[in-house]
């Protein structure tokens, strides 16, 4: 665990995050810190609140209490005294542009080719000149191993290829933080490896990442911090090898015995 005080500005700083859907409280006070360049892997049974927490980081979900700061700023709110007020959608959009997100079900834009998917946000959001964006898009697609698929539509690509386009699309905005919401859960087993390889390259290149996943191998290999969530709370966290080899908590042990 990195010492919070030693580092001036954590990339993600969550304090006492609460979130309910109706009467169902899914996050019951989450405190987490992700340092720049760190890879945090979040695991836990379904319904543990791990995906919800991830979606709160870029304000796809509102929070009911607490604070989530990304690089020092609240993404969806402004602070006045000890109260927070939700920002206007335009302001939220501006802040979200610096956070990349990859979804379980890819969510590529089906009416655009792979290259158009990657180019869309830099051109429309950042106002980048189209030729420059196209160059960037081609570089990124080549980087994720899809140099021959520029003109393919999502429906013509396998799940693994689609997810790699989705990663390239998120990277095209040059984000300072990448969020992965079970990026390999919807993939056929033989396609998982390609996507994980791209993510490992990204981690080694120093990208700050929060990854919700069931891939323990990935956690062990590139994770700096493993977080086990259950019932809306962080049950246990620490270096992945330690947590996986000798979990301290009963619930962690029970969960790991099922998935390992």
């Amino acid at each position: 665990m990195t010492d919070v005080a030693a580092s001036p500005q954590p990339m993600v700083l969550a304090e006492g995050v609460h979130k309910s859907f109706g009467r169902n409280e899914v996050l019951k006070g989450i405190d987490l810190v992700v340092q720049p360049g760190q890879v945090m892997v979040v695991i836990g049974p379904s319904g543990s609140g791990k995906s919800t927490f991830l979606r709160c980081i870029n304000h796809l979900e509102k929070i009911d209490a607490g604070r989530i700061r990304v690089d020092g700023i609240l993404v969806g709110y402004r602070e006045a005294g000890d109260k927070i007020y939700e920002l206007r959608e335009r302001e939220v959009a501006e802040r979200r542009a610096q956070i990349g997100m990859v979804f379980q079900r890819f969510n590529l834009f089906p009416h655009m080719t792979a290259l158009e998917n990657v180019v869309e946000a830099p051109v429309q959001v950042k106002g980048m000149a189209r030729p420059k964006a196209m160059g960037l898009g081609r570089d990124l697609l080549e980087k994720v191993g899809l140099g021959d698929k520029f003109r393919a539509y999502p429906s013509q690509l396998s799940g693994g290829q689609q997810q790699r386009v989705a990663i390239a699309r998120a990277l095209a905005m040059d984000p300072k933080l990448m969020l992965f919401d079970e990026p390999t859960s919807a993939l056929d087993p033989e396609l998982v490896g390609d996507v994980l390889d791209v993510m490992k390259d990204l981690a080694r290149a120093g990208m700050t990442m929060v990854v919700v996943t069931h891939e323990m191998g990935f956690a062990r290999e590139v994770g700096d911090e493993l977080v086990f969530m259950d019932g809306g709370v962080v049950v246990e966290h620490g270096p992945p090898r330690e947590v996986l080899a000798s979990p301290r908590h009963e619930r962690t042990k029970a969960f790991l015995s099922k998935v390992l």
Partner: protein
Amino acid sequence: MVLVVAWIVAGVARVVDADTIRHYLFNRLILDGLRTTLVVAVLAQLIGIVLGVVLAVMRLSKNPVTSTTAWGYIWFFRGTPVLVQLLFWFAAVPLAFKTFSLGIPFTHVTFYEKPMVTFMTSFVAALLGLGLNEGAYMAEIVRAGILSVDEGQVEAAHALGMTPGLTMRRIVLPQAMRVIIPPTGNEFISMLKTTSLASVVLLGELLREAQNVYTANFKNLELLIVASFWYLVLTTIASIGQYYLERRFARGSARELPETPVQRIRRNLSLWTRARVEP
């Protein structure tokens, strides 16, 4: 069944004067009417589409004032007959409001002012009556289209930093098109025919021109056949256009587009000629 149809056709053929039909098919008055029908149908449909998109987005807005306004518009314009709406614009509005003026409300600034009777011509009344009515129907079609787009698309766009407006324009509406276009094609085909109602506001469209001719020469049946012929031509062309539009917007959803009828005929022809040459 076939016999019954044949009997009716034969019966009609016996009383119809084919020369009259031939004579009036390309008559100047009829062709003028045809042009007016086409122009009014296209413009009214365009008004309807633009209005429909605006109303649909308003209807889905989180702001209750905005969504209720759209709901009220749709409720009113869908709930009253289009014939009444046409008469309202043409026959009631000029009596109730003496002048038409464009300006800033509650000030004395006006950009444009005209007596209402000269502004509200048959043409303007037809466009307003048909277009505003169509807007209500298009709103429901566009709304269904927007709702058909996966929520994940909006989330992905938002996660990339796109604003709601940009997301609607670049991501949601283009995908909604696939659901919007088939019923819109139907609406346009229906609009081509509904323009005939504008004959009540004295618009010189196809039906009115045909009527004008047959009140003079009593060739009612022949002229109604002429009018029907042109309506069929218009709706047939519109159906073909609809087919190609649907194909265009299926892009990305189907792995390979099916061949068009023209392509199929060409392929069959080339197979046939090759088969004849080769042996």
